[in-house]
C-alpha cells in the first residue's frame, strides 16, 4: 500500500529549516554511534578474500544454506503475522485483568538467551516434551531436527519484534476512525479488517521487516532446537558458526552473502511498503 505524498513539499521545507538547528551535542554522539555500527561491517569487507569469493559462493552447500535461510525466515514471518497481529490488537485494544503481565510475557523471548529458548522449546515440543510426546504419539510428528523445527525456533525468537511494533502502531492510531465506523453499525471484526488494519499497515510492515531480519539471523534457538544438518536445518548463521571453527575466511564470505542478500531485500521492501520519508 502506498500512502499519498501530496503534502511532501511542505514537509521538506519544514525539515530543512529544522536541520539547520541540530546541535553538535546530538551530531557528535550520532556520528560515533554510526561509526560503531558500521566499522565491524567495514572490517568484514576489508578482510574478505575477494579473489576466491566467486568460487566459494558457487559451492552447493552455501546456496543450500542461503535458500533454507530465506525460506524459513519468510514462513516464520508469515506465522508471526498471522498470530502476532491479533495478539498485538488484544494487547492494545482489549481491556482485561492481567494485561500488563501478558505484555511482559510476550517480551520474554527478547530477554531470554536464544540458546535457553531452544532448550525450552525442546522441553515442550521435543520428542519427550510436554506437548511434543503427544504430537509424536497422536500424529507421528516430531519437530526437532526438521525444517519445520527451524521455523518454530525462528518464530519464537522473532515474534515479539512484530507484536511490539504493531501494538505501538495501534496505540498511536487515531481511535476516532474506529469509533465513527462503530457508530455507523460496523461489527468489531469489520472495523478491524476495514479500518484498523489499513490504518496500521505501515506499522505491520515495519514489524514484519524487523521480525524477518531477526529470524534470518537466528542462531542459538535454531541450533539448540532444530540441530544442524546441511539442507535440512543448517541455515546461514549456523553455517557461518561452523565455518568459523576451521576456516574464518569462509565464514566471512558466508556472512557477506547473508548481509548482501538481506540488505538488498530490506532496501527494496522499504521503498515499496514502509512509508519512511
Amino acid at each position, binding site marked *: 500500500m502506498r500512502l499519498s505524498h501530496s503534502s511532501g513539499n511542505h514537509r521538506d521545507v519544514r525539515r530543512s529549516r529544522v536541520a539547520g538547528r541540530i546541535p553538535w551535542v546530538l551530531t557528535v554522539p550520532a556520528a560515533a554511534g554510526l561509526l560503531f555500527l558500521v566499522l565491524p561491517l567495514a572490517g568484514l569487507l576489508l578482510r574478505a578474500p575477494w579473489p576466491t569469493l566467486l568460487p566459494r559462493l558457487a559451492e552447493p552447500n552455501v546456496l543450500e544454506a542461503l535458500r533454507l535461510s530465506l525460506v524459513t525466515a519468510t514462513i516464520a514471518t508469515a506465522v508471526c503475522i498471522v498470530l502476532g497481529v491479533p495478539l498485538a490488537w488484544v494487547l492494545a485494544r482489549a481491556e482485561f485483568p492481567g494485561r500488563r503481565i501478558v505484555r511482559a510475557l510476550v517480551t520474554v523471548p527478547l530477554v531470554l538467551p536464544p540458546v535457553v529458548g531452544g532448550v525450552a522449546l*525442546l*522441553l515442550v515440543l521435543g520428542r*519427550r516434551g510436554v506437548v511434543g510426546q503427544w504430537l509424536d504419539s497422536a500424529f507421528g510428528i516430531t519437530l526437532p531436527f526438521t525444517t519445520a523445527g527451524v521455523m518454530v525456533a525462528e518464530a519464537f525468537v522473532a515474534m515479539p519484534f512484530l507484536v511490539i511494533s504493531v501494538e505501538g502502531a495501534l496505540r498511536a492510531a487515531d481511535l476516532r476512525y474506529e469509533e465513527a465506523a462503530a457508530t455507523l453499525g460496523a461489527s468489531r471484526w469489520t472495523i478491524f479488517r476495514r479500518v484498523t488494519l489499513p490504518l496500521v499497515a505501515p506499522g505491520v510492515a515495519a514489524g514484519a521487516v524487523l521480525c524477518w531480519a531477526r529470524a534470518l539471523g537466528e542462531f542459538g534457538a535454531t*541450533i539448540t532446537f532444530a*540441530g544442524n*544438518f546441511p539442507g535440512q536445518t543448517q541455515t546461514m548463521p549456523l553455517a557461518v*558458526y561452523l565455518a568459523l*571453527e*576451521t576456516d*574464518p575466511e569462509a565464514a566471512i564470505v558466508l556472512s557477506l552473502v547473508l548481509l548482501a542478500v538481506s540488505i538488498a531485500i530490506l532496501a527494496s521492501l522499504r521503498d515499496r511498503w514502509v512509508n519512511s520519508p
Partner: protein
Amino acid sequence: MTVFAAASLTGTFIELGKSFEADNPGTTVRFNFGSSATLAQQIVQGAPADVFAAASPATMKTVTDASLASTPVTFARNRLEIAVPPGNPAKVEGLKSLTDTKVKVALCAEQVPCGAAAVKALDAAGLTVKPVTLEQDVKATLTKVELGEVDAALVYRTDVLASAGKVQGIPFPEAGKAVNDYPIAVLSKAPSGDAAQRFVELVVSQRGKDVLTKAGFEAP
C-alpha cells in the same frame, strides 16, 4: 595465569588448577573452556593465554602454524563411546545399530575434534550413518542424548563418565582406530611464562596422569 582448554577437560583441569594454586601460593589459574577449534582461533586472533590444551593435534596445529607455540606434548588420549539415554530405548548394541534409519543419531560436526574422530571410527568400520544433526561441540551432542531427543550419539568416554548416569555408554571396538591425542603447550607470548611451564609440568606429571585416568582418559 590463563589456561585455554578443550571443553572435555573441564572437570580434570579445574581439579588440577586447584592443586596448582595450592602448590604455588599467590598464583591464580583462570580457565577458558570451549571447543578446541574456537579456542585456537581466539589464540590466533590475539587472546591473552598462557597455556593451550587441545582435544586434537589438528587444532593445536592452527596455533603452532601461526608460530604462537612450539613443541606441544601429548598428555592424554580419549576414545569415543556410543552414548544412549538411560534404558537404551532404541536397543542400540554397537556401531552397526546406528546405521538403522529408525535410530536417531547425533554426531559432532566434522570441523570439531569429536566429529573428526566419529568420521574416522565410522570409516574404519566401513559404515555410513545418516545423523539427524551435526552438533557444534561434544557437550551439545551429549545434551541431545540427555534430553532423549536422539537415540544415540558418538561422544567421548570421559563425557559419558562425567554425565553421572544421565546417559549410558556403550564401548565399541572401532573406537580404538580413532583415539584422540590431547596436546598441551606453553604459548610463546605467554604473559606468565614461568607459571605456565610449571602448570604444563603438573599436567604431564604422575599426579596429573592420576587425575586424568580417574576421569576416563588414557595415558599417551
